[in-house]
């Protein structure tokens, strides 16, 4: 890094000649190049960052829909039917399906492809399985980058499918513009619904297998939850709290702040988000829909797609899309910076004999964890501060 440039913005990483050709091939519509780029993203092959950088300006054309829910809720079957329906109306589709990997061997069986029966032989449905590879935080970056590759390739719709099991998956699905949470009938009582943080991120709730017993009850419970979540935002309740007080408390996680509190994560309460909450007060906010589908037969799929379209239109018309994108990129930048700084620290730990040796020295009471952390991070912090001072002086 040279300190003479604008301090805030760096240049894009430089593409190697081979990678530049790969990017050109991808933009020209080569499936092979698209597949290879996603592999490089997954493997973090040197140079992948320059590739994603180069693709960035070609993105923004695709509607990105995230589908999440517990294992067995029928996500893959529904994604298959969605892809087929989008194809029927002439859209091209990309699908990224994330499956868990074994924490012991790192291996994985990526089984969602089996269910893509309606779309076999149709290259305009580009289906790609990704393994979680045990990455904490890194998975959302990798999937977001893979979505960019599909978007730059020219896909009209990108569907992101992931098991809604934990924070990792919530991060992944948050990189979508529209999030659908799949619930199967009888999947729990009210307490379960309260527990599951995943329910806070849904723009659409889908009770799949709606032909099963108990479907109506699950629909009713979700309606009830959505209604409660909406809280004071509806017109008739507005007098209760008043818009101003809602705006100030919104980021705290209840009532009007639902979208922002649910999505912004660590950035809740920042100026941009607060403004978003205030806008929502004007009755412009999106009320999550509760829909029923039977993925096996395709029942309800058309309505679901209409709802996705309606949500995309809402995002555009309300201006919410700008806030959503800003939030997403902010999260991406944070994740990248954290990962890079973490990697620097990891290298430093290696240089000092490795984590096991350091732990052993702590165990022997030679040193303590805080001292070790200080020793590793201190020089990095000094270096950052030094660079900052030099840039200010320039």
């Amino acid at each position, binding site marked *: 890094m040279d300190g003479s440039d604008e301090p805030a913005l760096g240049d894009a990483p430089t593409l190697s000649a081979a990678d530049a050709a790969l990017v050109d091939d991808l933009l020209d519509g080569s499936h092979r190049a698209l597949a290879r780029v996603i592999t490089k993203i997954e493997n973090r092959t040197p140079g992948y960052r320059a590739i994603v950088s180069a693709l960035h300006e070609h993105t923004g054309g695709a509607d990105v829909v995230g589908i999440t829910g517990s294992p067995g809720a029928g996500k893959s079957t529904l994604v298959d039917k969605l892809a087929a329906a989008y194809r029927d109306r002439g859209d091209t589709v990309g699908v990224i399906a994330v499956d868990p*990997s074994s924490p012991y061997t790192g291996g994985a069986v990526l089984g969602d492809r089996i269910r893509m029966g309606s779309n076999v032989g149709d290259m305009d449905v580009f289906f790609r399985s990704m393994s979680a590879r045990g990455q904490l935080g890194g998975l959302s970056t990798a999937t977001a980058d893979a979505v960019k590759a599909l978007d730059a390739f020219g896909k009209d719709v990108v569907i992101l499918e992931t098991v809604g099991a934990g924070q990792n998956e919530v991060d992944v699905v948050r990189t979508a513009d529209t999030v659908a949470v799949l619930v199967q009938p009888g999947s729990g009582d009210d307490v379960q619904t309260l527990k599951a943080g995943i329910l806070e991120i849904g723009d659409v709730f889908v009770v799949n297998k709606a032909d099963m017993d108990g479907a109506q009850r699950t629909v009713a419970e979700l309606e009830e939850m959505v209604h409660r979540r909406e809280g004071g935002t509806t017109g008739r309740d507005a007098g209760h709290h008043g818009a101003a007080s809602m705006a100030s408390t919104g980021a705290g996680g209840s009532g009007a702040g639902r979208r922002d509190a649910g999505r912004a994560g660590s950035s809740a309460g920042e100026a941009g988000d607060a403004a978003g909450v205030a806008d929502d007060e004007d009755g412009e906010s999106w009320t999550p829909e509760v829909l029923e589908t039977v993925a096996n037969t395709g029942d309800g799929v058309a309505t679901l797609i209409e709802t996705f379209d309606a949500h995309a239109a809402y995002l555009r018309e309300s201006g919410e899309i700008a806030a959503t994108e800003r939030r997403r990129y902010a999260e991406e930048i944070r994740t990248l910076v954290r990962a890079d700084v973490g990697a620097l620290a990891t290298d430093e730990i290696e240089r000092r004999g490795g984590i096991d040796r350091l732990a052993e020295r702590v165990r022997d009471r030679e040193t303590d964890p805080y001292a070790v952390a200080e020793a590793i991070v201190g020089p990095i912090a000094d270096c950052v501060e030094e660079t900052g001072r030099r840039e200010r002086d320039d």
Partner: protein
Amino acid sequence: MSAEQQERAVRCLVAKVGLDGHDRGAHVIARAFRDAGFEVVYSGLHRAPDDIVQAAVQEDVDVLGISILSGAHNTLVPKVIEGLKQYDAFDDTLVLVGGIIPDEDEADLKELGVAEVFGPGTPMEETIEFIRNNVPERA
């Protein structure tokens, strides 16, 4: 700045082509590959050669393992290999065939570009070892 670690995993497509309806072996293989730390995509039963090619290209697999018990390998495997070549994907895909393949057919398949044929009773470790030693290097 590239302080990040590379995360290379061997990706395999375990594929059932054609009409035979027996995939117990394919399941066992998929599981063993997973336990060996590979990422395994399973195609499901009754796939046409084109479907397999589509999956292999999109998933960008290092290894394509085709399981055939029906005796149709002489018609199906060449179609898969032809398809991979069309997508420019043949050169860096290790193509393996598992199943009941007569010796003279095995020679023909290898002539076509199949890297190895594994008959019934092949120890799983042998297949895994073969993959580890022969997986194509990627740029």
